[in-house]
């Protein structure tokens, strides 16, 4: 495991030996499936995401969206298929190794470090991909660079004033913001956002939307969002999942107009 490759080196795109790939893809899923016993939670999913793209993943409850995220992030092993990240096959790679390649995620159900402070949460994210995390005898204060990076991530989501608060004392909305900050502090290339606006009031959701829209355009975003308005405001491209299968994929207007999609999802 080396240091994270950020910013992504330009030499890596346009890999030789892959004809027909004019631009290297940030993320590519080929015939990815996941079975739980007899249940096909994710079924032969094909998905390609270009670098810097904002992609929304929508579908009714139980469509397999979060399972798909778990497969991409490496929290669950795939039953079949292949996943590549910037051209590297990561299908069998452990979750932390994928994170080292620049892939990170947030959680639908807030997953933070509740008894630590906000700053400590961000520090954990900032040091995750640096050798400093193995440092055992130097106090945390001695790592200025990490501290800066952690505070930057907090500033990006507007939490810099709450740095010393314990996470469990934050409001739900603030905790959702911190979810994003943790993902940003590791400086990811591909970011998987699992319902970032879950449980937010409409005012907070609005704040979250503008936060997401203001993210570094170099970051590739894949967003699961239940709230169509938010999803379509952030993403230009939409993939629709239904019973584990991709039933539509394309620019948002086209997907919006798709009759099947309207029937099973938007129409209701």
């Amino acid at each position, binding site marked *: 495991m080396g240091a994270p490759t950020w910013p992504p080196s330009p030499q890596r795109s346009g890999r030789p030996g892959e004809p027909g790939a004019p631009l290297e893809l940030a993320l590519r899923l080929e015939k990815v499936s996941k079975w739980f016993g007899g249940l096909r939670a994710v079924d032969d999913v094909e998905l390609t995401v270009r670098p810097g793209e904002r992609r929304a993943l929508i579908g009714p409850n139980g469509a397999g969206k979060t399972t798909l995220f778990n497969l991409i*992030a490496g*929290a669950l092993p795939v039953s079949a298929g292949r996943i590549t990240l910037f051209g590297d096959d990561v299908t069998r790679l*452990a*979750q*932390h190794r994928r*994170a*080292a390649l620049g892939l*990170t*995620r947030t*959680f639908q159900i807030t*997953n*933070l*470090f*509740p*008894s*630590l402070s906000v700053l*400590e949460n961000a*520090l*954990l*994210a900032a*040091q*995750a*991909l640096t050798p*400093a*995390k*193995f*440092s*055992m*005898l*130097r*106090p*945390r204060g001695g*790592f200025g660079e*990490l501290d800066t990076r952690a505070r930057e991530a907090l500033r990006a989501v507007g939490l810099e004033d709450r740095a010393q608060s314990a996470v469990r004392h934050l409001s739900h909305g603030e905790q959702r913001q911190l979810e994003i900050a*943790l993902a940003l502090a*590791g400086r990811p290339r591909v970011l998987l956002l699992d319902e970032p606006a879950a449980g937010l009031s409409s005012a907070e959701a609005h704040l979250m939307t503008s936060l997401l829209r203001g993210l570094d355009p170099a970051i590739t975003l894949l967003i699961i969002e239940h709230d169509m308005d938010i999803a379509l405001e952030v993403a230009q491209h939409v993939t629709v999942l239904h019973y584990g299968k991709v039933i539509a994929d394309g620019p948002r207007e086209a997907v919006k107009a798709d009759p099947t999609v309207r029937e099973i999802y938007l129409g209701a």
Partner: protein
Amino acid sequence: MKDRRGIVIGLVAVIAAAGVAPLLSAYPLTLLTQAAIVAVLAMSLDVLLGYTGLPSLGHAAYFGVAAYAVGILATDYQRGFLVCLVAGLVLATLTAAVFGLLAIRATGTYFLMITLALGMVVWGLAFRWVSMTKGDNGIAGVPRPELGLPWSMGAPLPFFYVVLVAALVAWALLGLLVRSPFGLTLQGIRESDSRMRALGYNVWLHKYLAFVLSGAFAGFAGVFWAYYNGFVSPVDVQLVTSVETLLMVALGGPGTLAGPALGAALIVFLKNFVSVYTKRWLLILGAVYIGVILFAPRGVPGAFRRNR
């Protein structure tokens, strides 16, 4: 802030102990010595239980392995302090390194059961490998070490000060450890290992390192334990010792270092003094434990809940 309070209370306790020691008769002094040694054991377990969220029920194993190393080397081979110290530390660390490979994959109750079983293996060895350990009879007559100091370690006071210094060193090192980035990593694992994985941590590796380090410090305590008692027996590695250590940590408050250390001292004194005044001392100790479990905000149940 809570950190600082722990350090202050701990330092006050250490200074008070060091100050009154010359005024004490031999018996309370030996108890203070014992308290200091057991405090190191409790702090070593705190790294696992309090910081990493791993409730080990086999901690007596590393403690005991080191004590046995000292017992055997100091009696059968008449080795000096340095050889015994290094051998004790190395063996305890190696034992933890092997056991960690087997235990770390498991979590929660399963981790508890596996560490318990591994601890029993060491107990069984201590009991059955008679040619090495003298079995149930134990190894008696471990001489106090010669440290090249002007004072004989055979006297209770100099030995107490040596142990106190050793305990302070252990406390300082562990204190640095938990305040380092690595220590933060361990707390992150305690709070949410799924998030840690998503952030890019090799959770297994960090847990493993914590497990081995914790074992090494338990071994450090074990070295002094062998010298303190002058005697090593399977009792030192038995389940009761592990459980008692776990309760010391719970009593003092896991994840504070100073707390478990004081919890350890408290139990040593409770055991030895309450029992003088009443035969029902076990009842009192039991009531203390139950009180902690019911009322301590971060007691044993907290550690288990986090781990689920």
